[in-house]
């Protein structure tokens, strides 16, 4: 039993004071990572009012309740402003599930093991890149679990997107008008492979000969016919001052072409409100953005568990809200004791349509749980919120090796200025492509120029 030693606003005062002092370190009662390292349970780092929705709202909202327009004001401070507006005015609802206390259920198992094992091994080199104490590329897991600055948090975020050594996400995308109609509906795939910091796939921790690369990543579309075969391949340099190489196969051109590396704020396909820059709230090399700073800390409501819909054979999710009942994914959220809000500016993108972004990061896992970007006038522009989960539910599971797969499950990308919504969901498969994790074929099948040609289909 946790002994109540602090008054109800203790955590709030602590967060305000630390942000005002420019000090960051996850946890209130103790560093959150120390609590995790000692017990696997981050709750030791937080007072009672930050351990459950009941504690935070003094019982006015309970686990199992739904957040709706009627009660959202009780949790307004737990939500990023656009999500609050969506609930208040657009019929969005959130179902509250219990807060997850087992840290191993909030990220891939091997990744968390590596984070524990490699804690204290990371530093920045003279170019600002994360290296080991010996100056080698990173060896796996979150590099700064006890992050003390916004830059350390963001460096980790940029480095370890999906937290698997390799993934191919089969994705369905739905682009909705402000009227709530699904105007565009795409099937696509998103592949990632990390040649460094590998914790599951041999060879570990590096792919020999590719230690100078951070990531191979591609996105491709398989439906509808007009967009079929369109694909983009990013090859990231390990140096975070360098733009990724960008190649594309565009249906209209019927061949692979090199693209400008700064093409990261352009719609990839008609109707979509997503940019390459939006990926994992850290879609660009670390130092193409700058002025990273912590702007606030505090509890949050976020979909960090329960995102997988095991009931549907293709893992597809149900929707609600908006003018036609199709605008929002049915979403489960849990009370997150501490989210760190980081702000950054696109310093290497002078013509980007955004002036800054704010990213909500779960202090326990350092996962991004929401993002809001602002236009050049400083007005809120677009918001992103996702749901994660362990792919284990109701007696069913989808395994990643020896353990249930952990990953994202669905994402909202909302343009608040136009009312357009893009919904993404990870599914079991799209035509000809299945979700895969840590499979050696991912590189050859999705992450080379030859792969782009093949994905180009019949052209």
């Amino acid at each position, binding site marked *: 039993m946790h002994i109540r030693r602090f008054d109800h606003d203790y955590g709030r005062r602590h967060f305000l004071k630390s942000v005002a002092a420019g000090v960051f370190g996850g946890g209130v009662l103790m560093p959150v990572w120390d609590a995790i390292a000692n017990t696997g349970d981050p709750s030791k780092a937080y007072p009672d009012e930050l351990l459950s929705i009941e504690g935070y709202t003094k019982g006015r909202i309970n686990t199992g309740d739904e957040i709706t327009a009627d009660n959202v004001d009780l949790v307004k401070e737990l939500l990023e402003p656009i999500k609050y507006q969506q609930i208040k005015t657009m019929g969005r609802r959130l179902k509250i599930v219990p807060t997850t206390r087992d840290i191993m259920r909030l990220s891939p198992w091997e990744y968390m093991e590596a984070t524990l094992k490699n804690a204290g091994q990371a530093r920045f080199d003279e170019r600002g890149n994360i290296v080991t104490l010996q100056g080698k590329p990173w060896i796996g897991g979150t590099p700064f679990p006890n992050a003390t600055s916004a830059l350390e948090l963001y460096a980790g975020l940029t480095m370890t997107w999906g937290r698997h050594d390799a993934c191919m996400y089969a994705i369905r995308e739905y682009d909705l008008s402000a009227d709530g109609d699904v105007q565009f509906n795409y099937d696509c795939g998103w592949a990632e492979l990390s040649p460094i910091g590998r914790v599951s796939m041999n060879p570990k921790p590096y792919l020999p000969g590719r230690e100078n*690369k951070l990531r191979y990543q591609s996105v491709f579309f398989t439906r509808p016919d007009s967009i079929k075969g369109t694909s983009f391949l990013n090859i990231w340099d390990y140096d975070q001052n360098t733009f990724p190489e960008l190649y594309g196969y565009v249906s209209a051109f019927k061949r692979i072409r090199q693209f400008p590396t700064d093409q990261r704020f352009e719609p990839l396909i008609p109707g*979509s409100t997503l940019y390459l820059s939006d990926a994992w709230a850290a879609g660009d090399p670390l130092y193409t953005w700058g002025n990273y700073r912590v702007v606030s800390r505090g509890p949050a409501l976020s979909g960090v568990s329960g995102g997988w819909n095991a009931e549907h054979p293709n893992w597809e999710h149900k929707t609600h809200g908006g003018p036609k009942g199709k605008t929002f994914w049915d979403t489960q959220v849990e009370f997150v004791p501490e989210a760190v809000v980081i702000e950054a500016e696109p310093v290497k993108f002078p013509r980007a349509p955004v002036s800054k972004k704010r990213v909500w990061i779960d202090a326990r896992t350092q996962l991004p749980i929401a993002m809001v970007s602002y236009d050049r006038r400083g007005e809120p522009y677009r918001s992103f919120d996702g749901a994660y989960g362990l792919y284990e539910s109701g007696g069913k599971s989808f395994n990643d090796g020896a353990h249930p797969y952990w990953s994202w499950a669905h994402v909202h990308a909302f343009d608040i200025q136009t009312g357009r919504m893009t919904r993404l969901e990870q599914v079991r498969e799209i035509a000809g492509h299945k979700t895969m994790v840590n499979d050696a074929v991912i590189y050859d099948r999705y992450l080379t120029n030859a792969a782009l040609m093949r994905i180009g289909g019949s052209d």
Partner: protein
Amino acid sequence: MDGSKAGRWLKTGLATAAMLVASGTASAQAEGDGSFFDGFLGGVDVSIGGFIRVENAFQTGDENPFNQTGNIYNNQTVARLPGVPVPGSPALSFAVPNPLLADTTQRTGIETSNNWSNYHILRGEVETGIRLSNDLSLIGRMRAIYDPGYDDFNANSVDFDRGGITGGDRKLYRGNSPNYFEFRPEGKRHANPLELAGENYLVYLPSLFFDYNRGPLNLRVGNQQIAWGQALFFRVFDVANGLDLRRHSVLDYAQEEYADKRVPQLSIRAGYQITDEILADAYVAKFQPTIFGNPNTQYNIIPAQFTVQDRYGDFDDKFSYGLRLKANYGQWGFQGMAVRRYNPDGVFRWTKSNVDKDLPTNNPLGLTVHTLNGFESGQTLANTPFEASPGGVYSAEEWFEYAAMVRLDGVAGLNAAINDFAPATTNLLASEVNTFDQAHNQLDTFFIASGGSLRGHIERKYFQETVLGLGVSYVVEAEPGSPLDQLIINLETSYTPDRVFTGIDLGQNFENHDASVTALVMEKYQRFSQSFPATYFVFQAMHRNADDLFGRSLRGYGGSRTSTPDGVGSANYVVLAAQQPFPNDIYRAAFAVLYDPRGSILVQPGVKWKPRGSITVEAFYSYINGDLNGNPNDTLLSTASFADELTLRVAYQF
């Protein structure tokens, strides 16, 4: 491959296509997904997608002058002045005019049409993928097109004139309407495997291949297309396939490039990712030629006064093969290729008409020649490239006008027809001449003798050649956001030693030149506002040393109705194009210009609108001016300057 084999290929292919569609539909029914279908057939993944599109090009220009009903001499009265033959003396032959037998003529019975539309079709395409295992898939795409036709030439309408047109393929030259789709080489049925075509419809499989992927190896076996290179529209590395110029020829949306134009070939293609940076790509393909528009179809560019005898049947068992290496090293990219191929464009030359039709005896010239040939002038003519039929060339003036329009030498062409087909031609009293005037007189002599017009017969043959190519690309890195930052520069060049070209005299020996083609491409995405996505700009320049963009020898440039060509040393072209997506890419405006500094331009503004995922509306206007600077036969685009049009396309996709 003989016709029966091709027929079996066709049946097999279409049956497979039907199977693909049927299986996809079955899957659709199982899944109950109304817009897109995927499912499982005993563990085999099947997917199907496609679109239906209405395409219409509203004519704002002229009728096609290369067709009978667009001929610029229709309804024109032209004077003809024959000459006096002096066999064996090029200096004197036909040098002396014979005004006593002069006359005037019209293209009798052939009226100029007045179409409101250049092009209107209904197109449907379906693609199916069947995943047979983790490594192996079968991919098929079927394209079906229906064209209801136009106000066009009816060959039977000139049957009153000397019995009508006699030579050539009946379905191409003697039907009551043009044949819009069938590719009909001599003695060859189903020249394109996996294609079923009729006068008004075309159904074929641009893709039907097995795709095998294992590690860095990717293997494709079956009917397919291959696109190489970075240059858009300008084809430097893009040499693996010929072009299908039926349908809308090269006048589709320029920025789509040759999306549906490359002629598929039965091929084996292997791609191998040697390292992260280096990709090898090789193919072996059954040779398939470029397909030109049939006579009297909308965008035909071979004058309908010719009868073409395509000899592809002698080459349909030939193969082309090639290798490309492509490497990327950060800002730099390199590629090289070597291709051994049959030039799919082919070359043309005079050929025997094999039409035994006597010269009419109701005029003194015809009577004289017919008598001198033992009253068997038809047999003699059959051994020359001419037939005495309507719908041919009616006057020397028309001869020289059209020779210049297609970049041929009217005098040399006459001499080649005479010399290469002697003694038949000399038996008809034809003889080589030295001057334009002599040729003029001689031509008018034989047009009068023929009783109206002569149709010329040419044959199309194919030659093997080696194409070597090198390319380099560089991405400029400058101050972020500055005009030069992320400018992508590509330079590509190809070299073909001893390429065979159509002689500008249509002579039997063709022309041979070492040919080089070089293209510089500069691409740039630049944002001008926060709310609009980046504007895409592309600038391209091309230099060719031996032929023009349509593959015609540059020696044929510069002719006119009153002169023979003096040729040009090289051809240069410039392209400037831009695309501006609107927010969310719902609208996309585009603009493309192709400019030939010798005096012609194509300007094509357009817009694409995607109101919903399933609907796409596109509109673009093609403005072509081939007369910016003096002689239109000195520049590329005069050939297509008739085709000003507004194209509208509305597609439903699934």
